[in-house]
């Protein structure tokens, strides 16, 4: 069968050729990569392939992967980028090469528990409408020692996720809830998410690959959150994903709240416009796949971001617009919504400042 009418206007993602792929992105990870690969090789359910995309490591990472591939119980397909792409584009490249029906994402510095892949794939196989399943993780130190914390709690999403078996697209639109290494995704969601839109790279509010992928997955299907911990998530100074533990947490939260409440108008406006573009891109993908209701929800949230962009109007006019947003429930009624209402209110009465705030958090705009 040769399709003459592709179902979307984007490049077509090929059919699955195997059951399970692992997409692994690496960059100067020689210190931990062997532990990760060994933990994947010890899975109760092995993947059919591990697709490695190396982002121009200048240490021994590639050599170690090549050595591992000699005796790995599955195919290891390594590709080294010609130029450094950065984490999000690198994952896009890896996902494009994956051939599995189900694709699990891996970070180079983690340790998977033996049941991780089995548990996530079971969840996807049980219900064909599930496009993504993700779990919690235990935080471990640079030497692998347990830190006694869970990932969800340190990212302040534990309460939200534990009370929901299914996480709706609306929640993913409002905040980052997942970390790539905890998730497995159905091919439908990966197909809908590729290619990653240019809007993700907006400097004012970049959206990482894992947030984009989970947003699209929730828009074209069902996303399930599994509260059990299925891996050790390593906390170290060089990692991409920001994690706060112990005394760092309340201090950084205070700084982040202050920054959000006092963000200058032009920065805040740029952030809202960036988010609106990203959500509209996700809505377009959902619409293409026939998930019209979800596309509508995302478009509404994008419209609200645009409505929050503050112009030259009067203070009263700006406050009226906030009240309308609150009455329509557009902010949401969680902690994040309340902070956003407070921030918009502060900016509408003192809209003078112009510089970008320091949240004190890595990827702060994506996390909060």
């Amino acid at each position, binding site marked *: *069968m*040769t*399709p*003459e*009418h*592709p*179902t979307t206007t984007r490049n077509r993602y090929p*059919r699955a050729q195997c059951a399970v792929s692992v997409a692994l992105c690496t960059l100067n990870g020689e210190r931990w990569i062997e532990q990760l690969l060994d933990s994947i090789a010890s899975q109760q359910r092995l993947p059919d392939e591990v697709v490695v995309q190396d982002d121009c490591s200048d240490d021994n990472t590639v050599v170690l992967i090549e050595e591992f591939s000699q005796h790995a119980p599955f195919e290891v397909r390594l590709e080294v980028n010609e130029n450094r792409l950065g984490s999000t584009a690198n994952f896009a490249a890896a996902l494009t090469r994956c051939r599995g029906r189900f694709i699990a994402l891996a970070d180079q510095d983690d340790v998977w528990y033996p049941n991780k892949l089995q548990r996530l794939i079971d969840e996807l196989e049980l*219900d*064909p*409408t*599930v496009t993504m399943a993700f779990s919690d993780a235990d935080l471990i130190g640079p030497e692998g020692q347990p830190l006694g914390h869970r990932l969800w709690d340190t990212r302040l999403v534990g309460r939200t996720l534990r009370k929901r*078996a*299914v996480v709706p697209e609306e929640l993913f639109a409002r905040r980052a809830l997942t970390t790539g290494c905890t998730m497995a995704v159905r091919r*439908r969601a990966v197909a809908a998410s590729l290619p990653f839109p240019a809007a993700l790279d907006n400097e004012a509010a970049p959206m990482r690959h894992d947030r984009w992928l989970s947003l699209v997955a929730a828009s074209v*299907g*069902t996303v399930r959150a599994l509260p059990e911990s299925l891996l050790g998530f390593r906390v170290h100074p060089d990692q991409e994903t920001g994690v706060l533990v112990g005394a760092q947490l309340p201090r950084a939260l205070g700084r982040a709240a202050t920054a959000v409440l006092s963000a200058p108008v032009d920065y805040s406006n740029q952030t809202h416009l960036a988010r609106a573009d990203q959500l509209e891109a996700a809505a377009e993908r959902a*619409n293409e*796949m*026939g*998930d*019209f*209701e979800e*596309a*509508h929800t995302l478009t509404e949230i994008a419209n609200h971001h645009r409505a929050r962009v503050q112009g030259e109007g009067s203070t009263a006019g700006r406050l009226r617009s906030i009240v309308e947003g609150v009455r329509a429930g557009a902010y949401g009624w969680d902690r994040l919504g309340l902070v956003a209402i407070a921030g918009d209110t502060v900016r509408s009465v003192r809209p003078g400042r112009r510089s970008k705030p320091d949240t004190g958090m890595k990827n702060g705009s994506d996390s909060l």
Partner: protein
Amino acid sequence: MLRKMKVMMVTDSLQVGGAEQVAVDIANSLDRDTHEVYFCATRCDGLLRSSLKSDVEVMVLERSATWDLLKLLAFGKYVRSEGIDVLHSHGRGTMRFIALCKALGIISAQHVFHDHFGRMHLDRSAGRGLKIPLHRGVDAYIGVESRLCRWAIDTVGLPAAKVSLVRSGVDLERFSTASPIDLREEFDLGEGNLVLLMVANFRPQKDHPTLFQAIAELSKAQQESLRLVVCGSTTADPAYFEGCMEMLERLKIHHLVRTIGVRNDAPALMAGADAGVFSSKNESGPLVLLEYMASKLPFVATETGEIAHAVKDAGVGILTEPRDYLALADGLAALLEMTPEQRAEMGERGRQLVITEFEQHVVVRQVEAIYAQLLRICVPSDAANTQAS
């Protein structure tokens, strides 16, 4: 001589839908020597009223809200005055309505709840709004699929003895007497094409987009050799319908598809089609597969629900994974490649399977046994043995 058991089917409406059709079929096929049958649509009337046998007493309550007190009292008064023994509700909203009547002491009839809930993939929980009425206002629970029965026992905590699995059945008489409609002529489909019929209201759950994407995946020649007639309400979710129509235009397959709205002559439409198709993402039944089989239609459908799982290996249709348009496209291509004789054989196998396993009388005997058990009337043991446990 024993007094006949008075049974009332209770649904939200008499509009065309899977749960409503099951209620009508049970009402029509209960044994008239031992049962007197009533039907109550608590909200509104609909096209299915004309399918009810003439001896069924029908009332339309026109309640405007879930807790419409005046209608609640009127319903209670009617049930008491008629001396109804068993209220058989379909749909969770209707179940709550009757459970409230029981909790308020307005009625004392036995309450059988027939659960057709088709969104278990989104909601496997059981909050107080479900647990309380199920525990306090329901005397017997019927699930149309084993997943629902497990949920009732494990999540809701109903005793296994109260829970029964009764798969949907189909009233063959409706299909034996239907005169085929010439779909090619009626809908200007041209000659020489394979006419596929999809019977499903335009609602997101039915996932028409996956079917449209699957058709778009076929080669040009395959596309031109088929036509699709979609029968179902276009007003149930106007935004969804509009999205589907835009998608047909975008995929450039709108000329292959006819949407004909809701009809009360589905058996005649099925008799005039060459094959059935069904692309739902999640179902508990779905009854429409039995209707295709009763009409001797081979079909391509997504594998969701008790009936789809039950007929999976029977060679009566091609089943594919829900939401996977590539798999559905493969299914359609396989159907197109079959010879007319092969399709006819597949349709015949479906009809035979319905006769042996899904005929309405087989199903309704199980339901009658549940009523009898509630009222402590002796019934043959083989019919009574339907408990999910």
